[in-house]
């Protein structure tokens, strides 16, 4: 039985999981997570992030690879011996047990005496700011409160790793922010290594020290939120995290740090080769975020016609149709009186800086 220990490291070493049908759920995932880090597993549904979580928890035995918590390879341990705390998406509180019994459940399973159990569950309920709810049943609590109880229950066993499966998906927007702050506070207090599975990129970027982006069972990128957002390594990451305009083009000239690209939309721009040097004459896809485009007055940039303008509060998004017929979005900060653009107005667009346009070799 694991002893109380916060902040142990977690290594996912070349983990591959194949369904009985032969389909790959996750393929050769490597994650090296330091003790006390918050990591987000980000990806669209069906990308294998929940499978990976269940492998770490021990509910699924991976086909290949190892899971190492601290210094221990835990592959042969069943879930009840791994000391991994889990908060489920639907909280999975025991509906027939009171809040304090729920929190103390893991302690009871460890054979800890009643008095200690009661003291611990009270301490944890105070930690999650629900000290007066001990005698209630889960269904008498709101969603946010149930989530706090689920957290307290997971923390009660002093887990070495805390896993959160889409923890905020069922909460409304305001409550979600409160709970995100709450979880981050609890994580700071306990110093526990935490893994959050989410499909919400804002959540991943705001909460995690590092983000692992998954797509179709493969790890696309594992880096800090700013790495993932500003220096995406793959086209998928660039388009999945944040929004992005994808513009096809041909490489005119390229070196390791910059490439000159002729866009199909008609203009030559300088872009950052995201995956190393590009071959001259090769087809590429250039990703430019809407907030990284600007209107230019001169003949630089590419031409387009404004379709629609959407004022979104702090920003205004214009939809522009380019010469090759593809749509491009550009967002402008709303500073003072933003120039109103009528539908049908002819404009020219260019990226704010070469480093803000990422070029990826086009795949067929």
């Amino acid at each position, binding site marked *: *039985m694991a002893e109380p220990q916060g902040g142990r490291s977690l290594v996912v070493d070349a983990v591959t999981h194949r369904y009985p049908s032969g389909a790959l759920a996750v393929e050769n995932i490597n994650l090296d997570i330091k003790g006390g880090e918050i990591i987000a597993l980000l990806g669209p549904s069906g990308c294998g992030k929940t499978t990976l979580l269940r492998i770490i*928890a*021990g*509910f699924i035995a991976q086909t290949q690879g190892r899971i190492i918590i601290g210094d221990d390879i835990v592959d042969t341990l*069943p*879930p*009840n*011996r*791994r*000391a*991994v*705390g*889990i908060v*489920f998406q*639907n909280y*999975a*509180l*025991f*509906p*027939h047990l009171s809040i304090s019994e729920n929190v103390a*459940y*893991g302690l009871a*399973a*460890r054979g800890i005496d009643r008095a200690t159990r009661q003291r611990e569950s009270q301490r944890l309920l105070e930690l999650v700011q629900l000290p007066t709810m001990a005698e209630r049943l*889960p*269904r008498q609590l709101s969603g946010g409160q149930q989530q706090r109880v689920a957290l307290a*229950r*997971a923390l*009660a*066993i002093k887990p070495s790793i805390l896993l959160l499966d889409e923890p905020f998906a069922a909460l409304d927007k305001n409550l979600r922010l409160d709970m995100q702050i709450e979880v981050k506070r609890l994580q700071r207090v306990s110093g526990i290594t935490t893994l959050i599975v989410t499909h919400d990129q804002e959540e991943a970027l705001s909460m995690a020290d590092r983000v692992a982006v998954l797509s179709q069972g493969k790890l696309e990128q594992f880096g800090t939120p700013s790495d993932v957002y500003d220096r995406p390594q793959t086209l998928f990451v660039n388009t999945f995290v944040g929004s992005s305009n994808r513009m096809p083009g041909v490489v005119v000239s390229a070196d390791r740090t910059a490439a000159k690209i002729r866009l199909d939309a008609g203009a030559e721009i300088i872009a950052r080769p995201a995956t190393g040097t590009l071959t001259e004459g090769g087809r590429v896809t250039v990703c430019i975020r809407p907030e990284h485009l600007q209107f230019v007055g001169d003949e630089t940039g590419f031409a387009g016609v404004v379709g629609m303008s959407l004022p979104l509060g702090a920003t205004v998004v214009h939809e522009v149709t380019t010469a090759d017929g593809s749509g491009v979005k550009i967002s402008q900060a709303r500073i003072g009186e933003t120039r109103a653009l009528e539908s049908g107005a002819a404009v020219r667009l260019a990226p704010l800086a070469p480093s803000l346009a990422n070029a990826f070799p086009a795949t067929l």
Partner: protein
Amino acid sequence: MGTAPASRDVTSYGMGLAAPLALFFLFFFVAPLVQLFWLSLHNDTAGLHWGLGQYIHFLTDPFSLSVLGSTLLLGAEVTAVCLVLGFPIAWLYQRVGPRLQTIIILIVLLPLLTSVVVRTFAWIVILGRQGIINATLQSLGIIDTPLKLLYTQFGVVIALAQVQMPLMILPLITALGRIDSNLDDASCSLGAGSWRTFFRVVLPLSLPGVIAGCTLTYAAAITAFITQSLVGGGQMLFMPMYLYQQASTLQNWPFASAISIIFLLAVLAVVSVFTTLGRLSRGYGGA
């Protein structure tokens, strides 16, 4: 949640629709029951003298009381066997793929699709002196003389358990299906082993199904006239057969009526215990 007038409208509407069934019950259930009760209040077979003689006779007669006792005990045994054997099947059902689920449900429902008489004779063939079980055990050299299985309490319990099994398993499947499978995982991740998870989470949450299943199985087992009589034979007497003898063979209708009423009350008492337990356990129910 509707407002008061709206819900009253809905109720009166429902009452009107229920009227045909209510009338049916009134004529074919309540009226005969009243007649039965009226008949049981006569001291002589001709029905001329009023009195509680039949009830006094039953309740002071050790033989009658032993028939009642053995019938209630039979019900308890059949219910226990069904619960112990049925729970794992219901549990398994919730953990296998859709194809196996279809097979399990077919096997569970199979007893309901064959005639009670046919099924009971099948058990006679299986349990008899020269039956399948004895023949097999003898040919394997495990026993020398045939075991007495037919016409024993054991035989009746086994045959009834097989017949009533669907009544136990179906409510259990429903109750287990309502339990969020994440609760299993949650319990496990908190350090609980399979047995603790079962006794602390699965069993308490399946109690409504357990109680529904027990009520149905119990009520069906103690009133199963054909199976009790054929597998039990002449040597074992249970309430339905006792009742039948008094009414049909001995033509003692007042005493038969009194037996009916006492049996009815005994069953109602047991069922109401189950329902009370059910109501207490419903506190767990929805989540």
